[in-house]
């Protein structure tokens, strides 16, 4: 059963076609990778799914509801969460609070309840703190709960972004270059972690990644973008030997030596 269906989606910035008529179907519970050289349009593709940009053409469908025309916060409420290539944390607040923001859409506290600190609001806030702490434990950042997010190491910041996304209880999780800037050991841990996350939480994952070892190891399905176009799609083994893909990454000369 497919959870996300992107059909014929297109986005233009001025004269540049960043994403051109791309289709993608994501199976529920699967791990899908989106790969391609820098500037291929991968991040733009994510931005189109999450409502940061509106597509010029085409459709995005989550379950049975179309996402086109919805604002990012509405799409988040339908069950998509994401991380960002250039980390976007709430830098000046604590690690725990960062995760708590992920829980916000489940919290009901309003102005009056907050002003009078009703029992319900206090309870809810306490539960939210506990749940946020749980997610920190899950990604291994529990001991940093009171630190400012900006003081975490690079790898820890990436994990915090994942914790924040998980806290929002997504059905679909989009990871934009989660291993960027990580050393081989961290990358290996991340690979295991992504697997574990999918199995524990029953969440569907789509990730953009340059680390081919990680991609080949982890993904069940891969789509390849180049200059905004989808040039290949298939299982890791198929992509590995695809001529067009090798061309896109290494240039034409790699395939047909002069």
């Amino acid at each position, binding site marked *: 059963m497919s959870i996300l269906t992107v059909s014929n989606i297109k986005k233009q910035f001025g004269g540049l076609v960043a994403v051109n008529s791309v289709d993608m179907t994501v199976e529920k519970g699967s791990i899908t990778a989106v790969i391609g050289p820098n500037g291929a349009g991968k991040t733009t593709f994510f931005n189109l799914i999450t409502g940061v940009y509106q597509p010029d053409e085409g459709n995005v469908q989550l379950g049975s509801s179309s996402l086109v025309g919805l604002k990012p916060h509405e799409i988040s409420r*339908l069950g998509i969460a994401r991380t960002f290539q250039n980390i976007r944390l709430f830098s000046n607040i604590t690690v725990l609070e960062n995760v708590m923001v992920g829980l916000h859409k489940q919290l009901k506290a309003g102005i009056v309840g907050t002003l009078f600190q009703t029992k319900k609001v206090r309870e809810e806030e306490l539960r939210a703190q506990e749940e946020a*702490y749980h997610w920190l434990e899950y990604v291994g950042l529990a001991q940093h709960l009171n630190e400012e997010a900006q003081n975490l190491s690079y790898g820890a910041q990436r994990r915090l972004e994942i914790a924040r996304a998980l806290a929002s209880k997504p059905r679909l999780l989009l990871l934009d270059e989660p291993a960027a800037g990580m050393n081989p050991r961290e990358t290996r841990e991340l690979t295991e972690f992504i697997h574990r996350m999918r199995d524990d939480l029953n969440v569907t994952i789509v990730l953009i990644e340059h680390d081919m070892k990680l991609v080949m190891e982890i993904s069940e399905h891969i789509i390849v973008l180049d200059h905004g176009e989808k040039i290949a799609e298939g299982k890791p083994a198929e992509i590995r030997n695809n001529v067009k893909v090798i061309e896109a990454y290494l240039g034409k000369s790699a395939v047909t030596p002069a």
Partner: protein
Amino acid sequence: MQRLTSKLKGNKLAQIILLVLYVLVTSLSLYLAQASVTAFLLLLVSLLLLYYTELPDRLKWVIAGVVLVGVIPFVASTGPSYQSYMEVATVVGIYVAMALGLNIVVGLAGLLDLGFVAFFAIGAYTYGIFATAQAANFMPFGVFPLSGDSFWIFILIGCFVAALFGVLLGIPVLRVKGDYLAIVTLGFGEIIRIVFNNLDKPVNITNGAMGLASVKPPEIFGFQFVYPNQFYFIVLAILLFVILAVRRFEFSKIGRSWKAVRENEIAAQSMGIHLVRTKLLAFAIGASFSGMMGVVFAAKQTFVDPTSFTLLESITILVMVILGGMGSVPGVILGAAVITILNLQVLTEVTNYLNQLSLNGVISFPEALSPAKMQRFIFGAILIIFAIYRPQGLIPAKNPVFDEESLKEGSENHRKKQIKVESDKGFQA
């Protein structure tokens, strides 16, 4: 000195004793040496010292209450400058509330608002129009001026009207960001002032540049509030509410949403935060504090005209927030107090002193250079110095500290629940 502070650290009893001594000495000197501004200021500083003690919060509140409600009004009451001290204290209270309101907008939600005084004006005019005969010009029914008894309801009305205007302003304004937002709010502040200045025709609503005179003083059970020492208590009560409200908002879902929007709009949205609603709420709540104090201001001055609500006022409130520390409640309170006292007391005192010297022929000091006229220069200098050397302000904002042990226990339950919930979660659509 260092030895002294290290000894004091952790010794609560010594802290209390020293604080009480300090309050006693300053009170006594204020009580005996009548018109001593210094003693009055030093007495106010005791509240700052109190903030830095390590006493439990509850005790701090009680002590602050005793000093503000009992000690200050009492020891100041004997001298000829009683009313002028209470006037200063009252105005400080008004500005503190406004600065706390602006702090929500600028400090917590990160929206630079250069027209904040507009909401103060709206509050002041709301009461001013109905507590003078002015309302009779356009109201088809009712007898105006309303009696001073209505003041108490008007505090609420001023609060809501200002909040409403906060939302009305926000809807068009929040489409722009950063520098543009600052310019647009600046424009809004001026527009409001100019509208009040010109709304005397075709229907005379605000009485234009003439202003509204003889605003009814507040009244309760036949008792009228006319003197600063009486308004002092009204302001104190509202201020208590404002501080309580700000602290509760700050560490709630609402406050966290503001901070999230301030830190990163795209991330906040992608976590499900409704950007426009969150910003509007900041505008509305910030404005509402100003609106309430506007009502008090109109009643205290018994006169409202557009000249009280210039751009300089908006800038002054912003300076209070920046000086004190953006997003920091104690900081903003301190900033507002420092700037107000600088304005009302220090600059005028220094000017008087210099004039005295000129009169006696000690120095010849040109009128044009009198410190009272250099307000803008001084604010400008403060802004620059703080922007460069201490951008986090006098008392930087602090993040909450969570107790790891208690959270550890609580998170156990979530772990057990999580697996179950996640596995039977189907499509909502």
